[in-house]
């Protein structure tokens, strides 16, 4: 009884339960025919949300007001530039990945530099940054759609033991993020900063250094996701990051990470990402359009934060 209670006390369990229910609801309609395909697609597309969601989660953990709106622009730029550099040559795959990561590092440092130097809220700093990054991406793209190297394209679109390679990559990244969050000093530090930035400072935590690393980490994950997504979809498109702006925040919030900061949750991001994709498929199966899907998404986010509440008053 106590065990069961403990399991249900974990906020991430709810997103998984919801995902499973929606999966069944969808499969029921198709009479079980599309079960395998649906699961496969869900894992693939959820994986992209997970990768950007992980970065956004680290940033949101830093506490109220911390959010990175430059995620979509970073994805687009990294995807565009990496494909351009690789120029369909298999030998350049690693170089492409490296350039994507370097771009991520540069954007992350730029974001925090704006926050710190201009003393403006992260939301505006990352927004201004995203304008510039997006323009750079438009300029770099020049309307040409360059194909990814064949090896990379087939890697991102194929599976290993029935599990999409992309999902495997996302799982590995999640495990790394989990270790970072739960086992390292850095993980303790971001959680402490999110709970009380002043108390964190007064226990000797280098607050600025930690926040800089976190914003950089978020941008790097977005860049890697952009690199993979561009390869997966056969080329970079200028609007390829657009839907991940809200998605990256939504999966974090629905996954049980505290909006007020300090308490993050990696399994929940998986549950929420699967859930978000499956809701879309379910509503499509039932013949509902994009409108109902959006409304439901919004209501789910609202319900989750209303249930979780704001910062608990501590006295």
């Amino acid at each position, binding site marked *: 009884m106590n065990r069961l209670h403990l399991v249900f006390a974990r906020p991430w369990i709810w997103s998984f339960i919801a995902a499973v229910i929606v999966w069944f609801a969808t499969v029921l309609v198709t009479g079980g025919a599309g079960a395998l395909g649906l699961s496969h697609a869900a894992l693939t597309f959820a994986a992209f949300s997970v990768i950007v969601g992980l970065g956004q989660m680290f940033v949101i953990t830093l506490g109220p007001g911390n959010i990175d709106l430059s995620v979509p622009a970073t994805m687009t730029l990294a995807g565009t530039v990496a494909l351009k550099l690789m120029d369909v040559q298999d030998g350049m795959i690693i170089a492409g990945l490296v350039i994507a990561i370097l771009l991520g590092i540069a954007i992350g440092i730029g974001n925090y530099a704006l926050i710190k130097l201009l003393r403006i809220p992260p939301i505006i700093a990352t927004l201004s940054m995203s304008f510039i990054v997006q323009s750079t991406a438009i300029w770099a793209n020049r309307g040409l759609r360059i194909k990814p190297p064949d090896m990379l394209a087939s890697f991102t679109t194929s599976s290993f033991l029935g599990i999409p390679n992309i999902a495997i990559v996302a799982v590995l990244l999640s495990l790394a993020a989990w270790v970072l969050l739960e086992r390292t000093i850095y993980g303790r530090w971001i959680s402490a900063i999110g709970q*009380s930035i002043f*108390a*964190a400072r007064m226990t*000797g935590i280098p607050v600025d250094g930690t926040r800089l690393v976190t914003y950089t980490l978020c941008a790097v994950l977005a860049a890697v996701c952009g690199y993979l997504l561009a390869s997966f979809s056969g080329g970079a498109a200028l609007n390829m990051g657009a839907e991940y702006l809200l998605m990256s925040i939504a999966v974090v919030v629905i996954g049980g990470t505290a909006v007020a900061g*300090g*308490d993050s949750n990696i399994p929940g991001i998986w549950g929420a990402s699967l859930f978000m994709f499956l809701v879309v498929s379910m509503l499509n199966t039932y013949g509902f359009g994009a409108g109902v899907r959006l409304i439901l998404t919004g209501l789910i986010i609202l319900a989750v934060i209303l249930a979780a509440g704001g910062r608990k008053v501590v006295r």
Partner: protein
Amino acid sequence: MADAMSAQTIVAARGIKIQFGAVKALDGADLEIRQGECIGLVGHNGAGKSTIVNVINGGLTPHAGDLVYGSGQGHGIALARQNGVRCVFQELSLCSNLTVGENARIMNRNLGGWNWRRRALALVRNKLDEIFPGHGIDCGSTVGDLSIAQRQMVEIAISFTDAETPARLVILDEPTSSLDSGLAAQLMAYVRRFAAGGGAVLLISHILGEILSTSNRIVVMKDGKVVADRPTSAFTTRSLVETMGSVVKDRQRSTRQHTGERRLSLPARKGEGLAFEAFGGEIVGFAGLGGHGQTQALLDLYLSENGNWLPNRSPVAFVAGDRGLNGIFPLWSILRNLSIASLGALSKRTLVDDGREAELGEYWKKKIEIRTPDTGNFILSLSGGNQQKVLFARALATSASIVLMDDPMRGVDVGTKQEVYEILRSEAASGRTFVWYSTEMDEIELCDRVYVFRDGVIVAELAGDEITEEKVLASSFAGGEH
């Protein structure tokens, strides 16, 4: 009850008791304020001055005792305001983004209607002219553009205006803290005129000269009780300071001389007063009335030693006073709260070693007796005193040779205090330096050396047998030295 109240009584508080956790903030305090009176309220830290003020202005509900206003018995902010009770708080409570006139509008609920702007302006301008003739404040300007002194003047003027209900009792809590002597004199003159005209003022100030020259009755508080309530003529500075202090107790003075080298120093604050230094194995006290720059001095000491960008190897640890605000991490377990400052020593290649962390938790749980079955429990499951012990353990568990303490024992029960004092003594004996800001005299008396703060500056240094309540009080209050 009502017959005991004379017609001129504005508010009468009888036998008020208020308790915060284990601390009795008010223990049966009596205070009656009549029209035409200016009452000086004095007392040391924790005597209950601000608590009784908050009871009278409706902010706090008494746990026992009667509170009777002119209009009848009861309590609450609305009732207090109806009876013309106004309060100027020690922290500035104006909206700095609004103009002086607009702030007057917010404070006066029924100033609305057509052309309120002109009326609000006239109201506050006339009052400013009345209190501070020649003030030179432009009432159309934004409060944020004014100097601190001007803001304080505006706030005082607004609380003396009568738009809604006439101001009958104005509580001034350290009203002259940022006014120069000329402005302070103007204010005191106005306070006397206001009282002579039938109003009442409750004046709290650390400048005894102001109290003695302005008030016609002085109330001295100590340990949540009123210990003296006599006409001003019955007091001198010397007798006031004596009345605030307690009976001299016998105590063992640590005659220890510091042995270690100089560990920490700070030049004279604001270029005035004395410089600060601390040596190895010493307990240095920061005394003085609360809010006179002690916390800021500790923060400056701490932040100058701890960087914000790279991992720190600092020899200084900090124990917070306001647990909820800047001490504990509320989402974490006891163990995590305890170990956060010493993770560097507990980890290999930045990976935290669980086993060693748990060991550390067990060691400190035993050593300072944190009352919990399991350090894995949430920090909020502990009582306030035990939370404070965890914060102590957090600092002591580090290798830091200097521990700064920001009045950490406020609101902690006596038993816990004694335990912590014991640990402090043994840690100091083994060579650690403690810098201890405390608002409690008992704790100041435990120190080897004490710096007394007033108006953000160190005004006195006491050592050994000089550390007495009388000496600390005399230095805390301006004009109390002779």
